[in-house]
């Protein structure tokens, strides 16, 4: 389009030229809304969050109260999803379990992604020996399976929310660093970063003003993806008996406790499985939608 051109140029004419920050949010929102997968995914996650938050209102039952006279009941008017072998209400346990799954994975993912982002950006920007050594160390850390690292951390520090949160965060940092570093490396040679360098800006200013805003999408997608991994990982850990301690209403634990009884009280193990699967599917859909909306290829970037 040329300025000599009497015809108005379409792009600027249609865009109302909003302020940059607000414009971004609006744009993001619009792209998100246009992606059906993202909407469905976010809705599913949202429902999960709501159910977890409103758990006490939604069920009159205590998720950890044993009631032997009501053990192993099928679904009925009193216990919608039946009870397990201790007579605990399955629905209550699933609802409260969402708090654990969401809370722990959200906090640990935030921690891990935040830490990983800072380190990854710094590595990409500093380059040189710092980057070399860091990449080596991260590679070495990555070469140890996450589940083993987690088992070791949990056995060292014992189970419990803070430990699991930190452990998961720490285990995921290298993977986040790798992805973020990759994304940042694509930004660092861009001319606007070079321009900032030519102006003599400080590393931190370049990171904050030039690099970070351009990888926000990658970081967000990474966040969504990690969250789904974390949910799965934590449930695996609980399943193996290294995660949540009974009688915590944890989904992985519920499956472990009830899987042998699946023919007698199928809901006791199916309900947590369904909850787990829908949450992860929701997160995956959301991150798929996000990545499409932002043009980030999530598989290429990570996993």
């Amino acid at each position: 389009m040329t300025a000599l051109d009497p015809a108005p140029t379409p792009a600027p004419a249609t865009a109302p030229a909003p302020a940059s920050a607000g414009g971004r949010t609006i744009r993001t929102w619009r792209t998100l809304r246009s992606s059906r997968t993202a909407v469905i995914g976010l809705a599913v996650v949202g429902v999960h969050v709501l159910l977890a938050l409103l758990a006490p209102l939604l069920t009159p039952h205590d998720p950890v109260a044993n009631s032997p006279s009501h053990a192993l009941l099928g679904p009925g008017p009193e216990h919608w999803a039946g009870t397990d072998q201790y007579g605990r209400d399955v629905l209550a346990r699933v609802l409260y379990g969402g708090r654990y799954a969401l809370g722990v994975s959200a906090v640990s993912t935030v921690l891990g992604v935040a830490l990983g982002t800072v380190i990854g950006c710094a590595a990409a920007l500093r380059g040189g020996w710092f980057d070399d050594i860091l990449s080596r160390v991260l590679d070495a850390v990555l070469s140890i399976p996450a589940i083993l690292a987690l088992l070791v951390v949990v056995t060292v520090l014992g189970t419990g929310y803070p430990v699991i949160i930190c452990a998961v965060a720490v285990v995921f940092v290298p993977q986040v660093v790798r992805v973020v570093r990759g994304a940042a490396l694509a930004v660092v040679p861009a001319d606007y970063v070079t321009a900032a360098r030519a102006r003599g800006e400080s590393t931190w200013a370049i990171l904050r003003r030039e690099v970070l805003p351009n990888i926000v999408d990658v970081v967000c997608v990474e966040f969504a993806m990690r969250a789904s991994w974390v949910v799965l990982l934590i449930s695996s850990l609980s399943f193996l008996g290294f995660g949540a301690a009974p009688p915590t209403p944890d989904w992985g634990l519920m499956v472990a406790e009830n899987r042998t009884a699946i023919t007698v009280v199928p809901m006791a193990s199916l309900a947590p499985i369904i909850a787990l699967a829908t949450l992860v599917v929701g997160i995956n859909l959301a991150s798929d939608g996000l990545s499409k909306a932002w043009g980030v290829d999530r598989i290429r970037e990570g996993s």
Partner: protein
Amino acid sequence: MTALVSVSSLSVSYRSGGQDVPVVREVSFELPEGRTLALVGESGSGKSTVAATLLGHLRHGSRLDGGEVRVDGHDVFALSPGRLRRLRGGTVAMVAQNAGHSLTPSMRVGRQIAEAGGGVPVLDLLEQVRLPRPAELARRYPHELSGGQQQRVSIAMALAARPRVLVLDEPTTGLDVVTQRGILDLVADLRDELGLAALLVSHDLGVVARMADEVSVLRLGRTVESAPTRKLFSRPEHAYTKRLLASVPRLADDGLALVGEAGEREIRARAVVPPQAPVAVSADDVTVDHGSVRAVHGVSFELRCGEIVALVGESGSGKSTLAWALAGLRAPSGGTMTHQSGDLTRLARKRPPGLRRRVQLVFQNADTSLNPRRSVGDAIRRPLRLFGTAPNREAATARARELVRDVQLDPALADRLPAQLSGGQRQRIGIARALAGEPDVLIADEITTALDVSVQAEVLRLLDDLRRERQLACLFISHDLAVVRGLADRVLVLRHGVVVEEGPTQAVFTDPGHPYTRELMAAALEPDPDARPPVDDVPDWEETADADGVWTDHGHGHRVRRWRPASTPLVEGVP
């Protein structure tokens, strides 16, 4: 006799955000046997889309809205898949826009040509497109070939099944002038030899003028004018065509061409740099290495205030490297560079702020030189604050708006993101950002290469205005001699990191001393079918140095590196 190809009221659109966006609207043309039709127009005008319909191809997501394309009497969009396959390659073949991307990287080029069908042996085809040592070349992978060679392989591939129509989509974009000339000559020869009809897509009016029998000008998907080449170039009718033609810089212009609303051309007299103007930057014997590669080799020049010095040379000759060294992004490995107020051999972050501010770089690609997530106003304010040119936020905002106005843009644009601006607007913002530090030296590295001609004309004019008003010294880097012609006061011709010729623009263009300069000029294409190249004889040559030194002086600062006619001829494109 009916035309081999006939396109009638072709309309194509694609869906975006739930809306149908028309890309091609009611385009019609006919292409008789043995003729060449050119589609011209600025980027995004729908040229490639039209071209691909000749092969019955539409991009993913786009849709035929109306009209039909007949090739050899058949409606291509009605053909069965099998017949369509036979049409492709057999009747119509395509040479794609970017040979580097259109060859499968994991397959040897010989096999790629062979599988295109036809009975012609691969080696004969390779010979036909004038590729030396075809047997060895056929076993190479695409990435082992130079851009020119890749393009020749694409052509060979298109010719393999002996088609009757050749669709050439920007066959020379991305190639340097010399290579481009070679490819065009080849295509012209083959067309005549094999009696092919050709559809040539290009945004370069020079190429079109040289190759086409007829021209259709596209704009926003519509044909604005359609005429035989000679007529179109001599008597354009539509104002848009006129403006387009007028915007193309020519080797003959002695000063910057200003293009009017109706496409009238007016040559602005060159600004006079007073001989006593102070020297802003002087470089002496500068050498820059990329590891073991010596990219710039002993370059010396002086740049005075208010002067524009052009640095020309083919791709890879070291132009950008020199620019980066001046801007302090790369440390030279030898020689000195000094500014009035300090030493330029140091890296930017070690230069005192005052010096950093005075030497500013404008990047080639306006798309990538502005942070896509920050408003353009922000981009301009940042150096204002950093260099302390503006004492506070309000002053910076005010000054930024002023700068936007200085580059002839609406200050309201300051709130937009780069993606909301056109290419030309973005490039102006890039310049405004460079001006924010109130520099006295501006390094412009191929700042117009990515722009359409009309936009390019504006940017050049802006630069010329600035140097007149602000006495800016400017190092203007380009690979296009014609662009340099109207703007620069002096020219440095760079080849393989070495300056082969330098002198006042006037002198260099009227009397190019070095065969390399002559080669560049001979390869330049004028938007005029009758234009004769300013030079036609380019002798084969090799470098010499004798006792008198390496330079031959032609007076008035015009000097040429010594050379002598070569004993063995060089073959283009052979590594």
